[in-house]
């Protein structure tokens, strides 16, 4: 149902676009854009945040674009396969990505030698921001982040720390330990690959003393954990407001308050497309903006615990490139798990 039509039309369009490119400049056709279904490409499998966000947005985006919108998944290689596939598509504005742009695009570039640059991608809006949360199971005797620091300073082996390897969370954990002068190689760090889920479960189950994982997934498990610290510099009343912020914690301890923001998810296109076909891009951007602000859409997404804030391209690109630069700066930390 979802894949049939867009594939055919994209193939014919490929021919059309190629023909049009030879015969007439693209802007001539732009007046009618979009005149066929638009596809949202999700570089993850079905069921995750991005997939759910894309599928929830699709009907509203369709309303504001005036064309059907379908969702297509292309998972694998830590989004590298989806990114490479997207880079091979024509710049006709008929495909847009919903992506955890940071940290996944930086990760594929810095760790997996992906042959594209961070600047090749252009953020339209990244409404979902997820920060690393340091948390412990409610059954554990630990109550504050200062107790964790004290225990680790006395003996780096005293607590086990759970984290996803080669992730934004890992950089934050490493910065936290380094800031307090705790030897990372002596600390007992337990790594959990395959997304944040396993590290979260290990934290809730008490298999690690402190988990450093994206906090969003902890929201339904609030009762079973004690949030210790949020790696952010802004307080969010809906995101564990009872826990101290890393920025304040670092200032108090005289540490550089640097950190990597967790997942930043939302609509992404190619910079190439924005530069070459600006009028189509404008149409797409404004449709996404109107859909995001559509009261019905806001209500529907809120019900599914999906983010609906409109930050716009400027703020979104800045946040994304910031995350990339911090990760690049600490690439050595990322490489040695």
């Amino acid at each position, binding site marked *: *149902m*979802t*894949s*049939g039509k*867009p*594939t*055919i039309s*994209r*193939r014919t369009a490929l021919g059309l676009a190629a023909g049009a490119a030879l015969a007439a400049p693209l802007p001539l056709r732009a007046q009618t854009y979009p005149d066929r279904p638009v*596809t949202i490409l999700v570089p993850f499998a*079905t069921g995750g945040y991005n997939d759910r966000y894309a599928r929830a947005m699709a009907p509203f985006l369709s309303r504001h674009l005036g064309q059907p919108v379908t*969702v*297509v*998944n*292309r998972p694998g290689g830590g989004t590298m396969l989806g990114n490479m596939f997207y880079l091979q598509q024509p710049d006709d504005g008929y495909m847009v990505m919903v992506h955890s742009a940071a940290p996944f695009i930086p990760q594929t570039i810095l760790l997996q030698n992906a042959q594209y640059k961070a600047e090749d991608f252009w953020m339209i809006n990244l409404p979902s921001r997820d920060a690393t949360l340091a948390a412990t199971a409610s059954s554990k005797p630990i109550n504050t982040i200062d107790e964790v620091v004290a225990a680790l300073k006395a003996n780096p082996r005293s607590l086990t720390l759970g984290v996803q390897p080669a992730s934004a969370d890992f950089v934050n954990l490493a910065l936290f330990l380094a800031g307090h002068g705790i030897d990372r190689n002596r600390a007992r760090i337990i*790594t959990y690959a395959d997304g944040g889920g396993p590290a979260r479960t290990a934290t809730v189950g008490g298999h690690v003393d402190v988990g450093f994982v994206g906090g969003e997934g902890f929201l339904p498990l609030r009762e079973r954990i004690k949030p210790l610290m949020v790696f952010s510099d802004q307080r969010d009343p809906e995101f564990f407001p009872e826990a101290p912020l890393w920025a304040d914690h670092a200032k108090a301890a005289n540490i550089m308050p640097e950190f990597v923001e967790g997942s930043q998810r939302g609509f992404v296109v190619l910079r190439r497309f924005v530069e070459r076909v600006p009028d189509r891009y404008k149409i797409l951007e404004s449709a996404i903006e109107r859909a995001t602000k559509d009261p019905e859409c806001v209500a529907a997404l809120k019900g599914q615990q999906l983010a609906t804030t409109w930050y716009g391209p400027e703020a979104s690109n800045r946040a994304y490139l910031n995350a990339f630069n911090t990760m690049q700066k600490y690439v050595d930390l990322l490489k*040695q*798990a």
Partner: protein
Amino acid sequence: MEPSAERRIAWGHLALVTALAAAAVAYLIDARGVSLHPHNLLFLQPTAVLVVVLWAIIALACLRGDRSGEAPAQTWPERLKVLALVGTFGLFILGLERIGYDIAAWAFVTVALAIGGERRPLMLALFPPVFVAAVIVAFKAMIPYPLVTAIL
């Protein structure tokens, strides 16, 4: 693949087991190139060593001419039929993304039917396109991925 019966050494078996052991060693070398940290090699290295040890035992048996457990020898026509199917299937997989899943599958089903011994022209002409069309349409309706096709 197998030598004549007078030669005692089980060459086919020896070639297979040696190739697999070589792949395991290549994998170990590649992994050691990534890092010598125990977090990388803790489990991989002993397993690769075990493969090499087992290779030595099995290779010795092959050199002694141990043929226990091997499938009974086939006649040449039978063997050719199997090899033809393996080859056609490989070409089919290679062609999927190049000529489209629909055309590749249609060609494969037709050739494989012929290899299997189907000789009725009507069957060879009509069944493959109908079957392949049904499969492709059904999968397109079910999966959330773009599928490269030439016609459908």
